[in-house]
Structure formats: structure tokens, C-alpha cells
């Protein structure tokens, strides 16, 4: 797994998670969260995420808690296994959600 982030020209922060997003990613994801500006919107991009587990769901809730305002977070490009898991866990209702499935 790798977590990379950048801010686009509109000030929206993009967090891209490549590969597996699972229990082994706690440290990297928490480090990525800590760099985010709470005043700006965040898009978590699942376009290159191949697998997530329940620990990943927990990490998204850590992000939600950190940002304070759920309206500032969108889960984007969800497809395949990640899309399936996020929907079964009702995360498409807890966050802004953008599926490409």
C-alpha cells in the first residue's frame, strides 16, 4: 500500500491509496491524516485501491473524526472489492460517495 496526497488548484486535498488498504496501513494512513488541513475538503481516491478490510473502514472513521465535518470528505472512484465492502458497511451513507462501478 502507498498513500500519497496533494492539493489541487481549487484547494481540495486528494488522498490516493494504491494497492491494499488494510490493517497493516494504520501507521501510514494516520501519518497522512495528520498532514491534512481541516479547513479544506478531502477526496479519498480509491481508483487504484485493490482491497480493503474492516480496519480500513476504521481508518476512514479516524479521518472523519479528525476533519470534524463529514461534509468535507468524499470517497471517490470506488470500484470492485472496495466499493462492495464500503457499501455493505453503509459507508456510502456515512460519507460523500462516488462510485465508478
Amino acid at each position, binding site marked *: *500500500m*502507498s498513500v*500519497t496526497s496533494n492539493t489541487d488548484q481549487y484547494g481540495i486535498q486528494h488522498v490516493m491509496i*494504491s*494497492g*491494499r488498504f*488494510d*490493517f*497493516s496501513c*494504520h*501507521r501510514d494512513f*494516520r501519518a497522512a491524516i495528520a498532514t491534512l488541513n481541516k479547513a479544506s475538503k478531502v477526496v479519498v481516491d480509491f481508483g*487504484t485501491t*485493490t*482491497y480493503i*478490510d*474492516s*480496519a480500513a*473502514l*476504521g*481508518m476512514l*472513521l*479516524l479521518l*472523519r*473524526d479528525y476533519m470534524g465535518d463529514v461534509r468535507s470528505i468524499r470517497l471517490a472512484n470506488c470500484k*470492485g*472489492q472496495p466499493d*462492495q*465492502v464500503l457499501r*455493505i*458497511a*453503509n459507508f456510502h451513507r*456515512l460519507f460523500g460517495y462516488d462510485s465508478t462501478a
Partner: protein
Amino acid sequence: MTAPPEPTEGNGTLRGLVLSVGADDASFVRIRETLQKLGADIARVEDVPAALNYMCAQPPSLLLVGAALSNDCELALLHKLRDDSLLRQVPVMCQRPRTEDDPLLNDLDSLPPHCYLSSAFDSVVLLSVVRGALVGNPSHAPPVASGASRFELLREARFTFRTLLEAQELAVELSRVCPEPSRAELGLVELMINAVEHGNLEISYEHKSMLCWNGGWRAEIARRLQLAPYASREVSVRFLRDRDTLRFEISDEGPGFAWHKFLDFDPDRSLDPNGRGIALARNVAFTRLRYREPGNVVVAEIALEPRQ
């Protein structure tokens, strides 16, 4: 090892997975933009160990090796692939400027059989090689894990493990016997990790929540794995196959837990950072899941389609 779905073509797009290793951020953006034209999925890892781990779990249709890897690392990776009977079938494209004394150019005979060298990023070359890998050329088709057929012969087995990493690795292996490996892997990982952290290590739900919030979860797992009485405990997994069912019986050496309330997603716990693993396993992976009192044995079953 899990084989990816066969690449398919339709409506001008190709389906398949391209893995990128050793690409810097700018290169990866260009690669992703280029491959989006084909509709291929792309994943990214940073280094050689991560690439090998990824490929063992999910062999891609093509591996792209970028210039952020040193020459030595690139060569070491290619030798690893060459020496693996399954991974050597994965086409590899290496993109970097080369000089005449590049060790790879002096070692061409030792490369994997489907290895392409490009001296610089060229989107046209990249597109043509990726398309060739995805379009279904039999020699470039993603490798099929022959292990799957071997595992079909397995009727009964027993495994033991202690750590989260062992749980994950065993789940990947066991999922290969299942009709839908990626679903089974998720379910098995969830149940096996539960058996370690909540079973053998006796970390309560509330304690796990607190550890998730404060970032101390992995450290607490590592600490308890060294601590009596937890250090000597093992999780046991018994696998049984009969005509119409795969059964996984996962037993830990803890005192059990109140499992009933975790079988379904609970709206009252919807914002907790933990507590979804069992419900996820039950909904995604298994036909049937039940605990035996006092909750330190879980039996998960997958129904098999009748044989033709």
C-alpha cells in the same frame, strides 16, 4: 496465489491490472493518465519487497519498473521474477535511461522471458506494450495459479499461527481453495485477526476502540504477543472439504466473547473505528457462520456449486 481475472476487451477498453513499482510521483501521474485511455486498473508500490508481496497475492497483467529503483534493485527484482515459475510469466516493462555499462544490458540472457526495455517514458510505447499484455496474447496472459488445481485435492488440513502477519498470509493461501478467493480472503482475515487480538490477546472491544483512536493498536498487539499468558497461545485453523461445502474452523485459546451482537452491523456503533469484521465476513465471504460457546471457536462455511 490469487490469479486476476482474464483481461477482456470490449467497447474500446481493456480490463486487467498493471502494477507500477519504482515510479516517482510525476511519472506515476503520466502512467496513470496514459493507461486510463485503455481502461486498465493500475496499482502502485514503492520498492522490490512490496512489489513481490503484491505480485504473490495478485499477479498483475503487466509490471512497470520505474527509474526510482536503483539499477541493482531493478536487476534483483528481474532475477526474482525469472526464478519464480509463476511470476516469470508476467510481462515486465522497464523504463529508464541507460548507459552502455548498465548491468542489465550486460545480463540480457538472465532476464524474465517477457521483458521490455524502454530508454525513456514514451506514452505510445507504453500503450502498445500494455495493450499487448492485456489483449489476450496467450504468452502474455496473466499467470494462472496452478496451485488452485492442486488445492482442489486437499480434503482436510490443520494450521496454527500466532501473529497478525501469519493470519494474513494463511488467509491468502487458504482463500485459494475457495470459489471466490478475494471474498474468502477478506472473511478469513477478519475472523483470524479477531482470534488473535480479541481471543488469544484478550483485547476488549472498548480497549481496541481506544487503541484505534490513539494509534497504539499495533504496539499493544506486539506487546501482548511477548507477554504471559498470551505469548504461548496459538490460533488453530482446521480446514475440511466435503462434496458441497468448504468448512473453516478457527479456534483460539482465549476465554471467548459476546459474539451475538457482532454478527450484524449495528447502527449504534456506526461511528466506532472497530467492530465490523465479523459482520463483514458473514456478509461478504461465507454462506454460513456460527460461533460455539463461549465464543472462542468460529465455524465458517462456503457452499460449493454442484459439480457438472
